[in-house]
């Protein structure tokens, strides 16, 4: 399941909804990304995205994770709009019978989301606003999964 929204999310409620009434789940991993203030340099973070393509990409990434690991449930929630330091940005939840699948799938979802989902961050601080540069280590992290798939 994937969602793009301006509202915050409630991690406990999301897990409860995903796992309600299921006895076949043994391991649930969540990743939450939050806004860092970077020692006062960031007072506001604005997230822009490409409506339509965002959903297509998130569905594609989730389907790829489900084809690689035996997941009982998964969820990606990404916020857009203007956020403050400490605010939640993104939530990934993976549920599986065993912990390795849940951990690896959650990491994979984040690595792929970071390099392929069309979101852009603009940071505002005392010195003005600017678009955040992409990190080469994010490309490296995503590329590692491609190597593993090819092996």
């Amino acid at each position, binding site marked *: 399941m994937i969602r793009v929204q301006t509202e915050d999310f409630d991690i406990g409620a999301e897990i409860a909804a995903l796992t309600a009434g299921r006895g076949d789940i043994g391991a649930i991993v969540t990743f939450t*990304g939050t806004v860092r203030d970077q020692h006062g340099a960031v007072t506001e973070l604005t*997230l*822009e*995205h*490409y409506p*339509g*393509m965002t959903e*297509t*990409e998130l569905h594609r990434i989730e389907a790829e994770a489900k084809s690689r690991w035996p997941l009982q449930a998964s969820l990606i929630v*990404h916020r857009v709009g203007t956020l403050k330091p400490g605010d939640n*940005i*993104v939530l990934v939840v993976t549920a599986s019978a065993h912990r390795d699948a849940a951990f690896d799938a959650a990491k994979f979802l*984040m690595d792929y*989301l*970071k*390099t*392929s*989902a*069309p*979101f*852009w*961050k*603009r940071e505002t601080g005392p010195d003005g606003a600017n*678009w*955040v*540069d*992409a990190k080469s280590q994010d490309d490296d992290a995503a590329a590692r999964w491609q190597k593993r798939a090819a092996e």
Partner: protein
Amino acid sequence: MRVLYFAWVKDKAGIAAEDINPPASVTTIAELMNWLKARGPEFANAFERADVIRAAIDHSHVRHDARIAGAREIAFFPPVTGG
């Protein structure tokens, strides 16, 4: 065809979306960027670092050598920074 711009590509171009009608000689994403660039100083500025700009055709990531024939919607944007 519809063209969309995002993040700093949009800011520099000064426009978020438009309908364009490039000549038949423009067949790839790279050629389309060159054609857009020639339309004025804002576009020349937006596409100055064409090598770092990413493109999508009809919601799928494509490379700069992708052919644009049949595209309904083409988007240009910087490397993504979500998550």
